[in-house]
């Protein structure tokens, strides 16, 4: 059975190396400062005691005051899973460093987060619209997104 590494355990392991960058921890997750996320991820992938080779998923949640980017890491060798979270404040152009150099699998997922949530990733090789189209305005998964009115009235227009 996959071990769920609790946030407290992981926070203790990370504090001696990253100190203040470890913001907070609960049973479910550990919160990392935005600027340090790429370094923490690289460490967790490369360090043999952790060996999180697989980035299971990367997504974001809009809590209105801030965005929370959620990294779910899996270690195949240890059969363990853990969760990193990053709080990114601000509605206008929130951003944090990319983890694409650490995991190739982050590339499409970060593009998706940028497209739908409007959180941008600094250093991403190809950060452009993914599910919506070029020229789409706004980021539809934000809580305050409103669909623009149709440019015609149904059923007469078209």
């Amino acid at each position, binding site marked *: 059975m996959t071990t769920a590494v609790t946030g407290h355990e992981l926070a203790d392991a990370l504090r001696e190396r990253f100190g203040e960058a470890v913001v907070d921890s609960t049973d479910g997750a550990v919160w990392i400062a935005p600027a340090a996320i790429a370094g923490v991820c690289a460490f967790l992938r490369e360090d043999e005691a952790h060996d999180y080779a697989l980035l299971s998923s990367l997504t974001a949640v809009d809590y209105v005051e801030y965005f929370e980017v959620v990294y779910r890491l899996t270690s*195949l060798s240890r059969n363990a899973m853990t969760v990193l979270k990053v709080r990114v404040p601000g509605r206008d152009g929130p951003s944090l460093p990319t983890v694409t150099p650490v995991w190739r699998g982050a590339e499409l997922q970060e593009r998706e987060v940028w497209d739908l949530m409007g959180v941008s990733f600094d250093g991403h090789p190809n950060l452009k619209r993914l599910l*919506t189209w070029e020229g789409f305005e706004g980021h539809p998964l934000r809580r305050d997104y409103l669909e623009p009115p149709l440019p015609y009235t149904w059923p007469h227009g078209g």
Partner: protein
Amino acid sequence: MTLRTEPVVVSIGPHHPSTHGVFRMRLTFDGENIIDAEPVIGYLHRGTEKLAEERQYTQVITLTDRLDYVSSMTSNQAFVLSCEKLIGLEVPDRGMYLRVIASELQRIVSHLIGVGFFLQELGGFGGTALMYAFRERERILDLFEMLCGARITVSYSRIGGVFADAPADFWPALRRVLDDMPGYTDELEALVFESEIVQSRTKGVSPIDPVLAVNASLTGPVLRASGVAWDWRKAAPYDVYDRVDFDVPVGANGDNYDRFWVRIQEVRQSLRIVEQCIEQIEPGPVRATDAMLFRPPPGDSYVPTESPKGELGFYLVSDGSIAPYRCHVRAPSFINLSLFKEMLVGWKLADAIVSLGSLDFNMGEVDR
């Protein structure tokens, strides 16, 4: 004398029969060789995650049917598992067994379609293998119809169990399918893998290195074909997967051949699992009775499951209301596209079509 050549950009899709739905490839050719490749997706984006935020948890189950529409049972199961984890709900044994039987049958359907289209994409063969695969698929869809009245959009798994107990005539019908399936599988395997043309066209084509595969978050048969024995049914058994015995087939080279070979072997393992479930299943309730009004406490949950395409999980964030605050789909079809460029560059167009098919993605799940 050498002729000066210029790269040519060719857009294939979104309405091309070989691209498995509304998928577009932007390929750059030098002569016949691909020198750059980019997937262009989003043509089937329906905003499933946004829709889920405006619906009750129970209503979201019908949305999950429409994600991977050749594998609805496993999508339903992944979603309800995540819901059940939010409130720590215990599911009756019979409900879990029925879910696993349905999911494994669905895995067979999904892999049959994957392998069936494989020969189609190699060109020629007149769709024979595809029609063989669809014949078996049809019989399993008939079983689903007996279980829940629907064939594709099943909504069979519900929070706390399944929609209803299987009718009495389901079991003999399932028995007949299980008796016939090994023969069908042998037939399909012989048709596909004993063909010299298939072997010469697919062996060694578009190999994926295991380290790179893990790094690119590939999961499911695509990862296992590269030799990484990682299966969420083994790693973190959900429902009753810890009570059944099955093997995890792995490939050796991670090429197109292995990716299809692994799927055929998984069909056999799924049959094994269903057989064991039939032996173990006992009469009893199929659904926890306290699950009718679902209002979980604030919190989040994620349960990784092994769908036919790979790791499928729903990240649910609850704010204590009747609708999820956030419902993110970790869609294996979508993330398996991460190595699209590496797989295609250096090969020819005819190989690209097969490599694309070997990822066996489903556009409903890619675009969500």
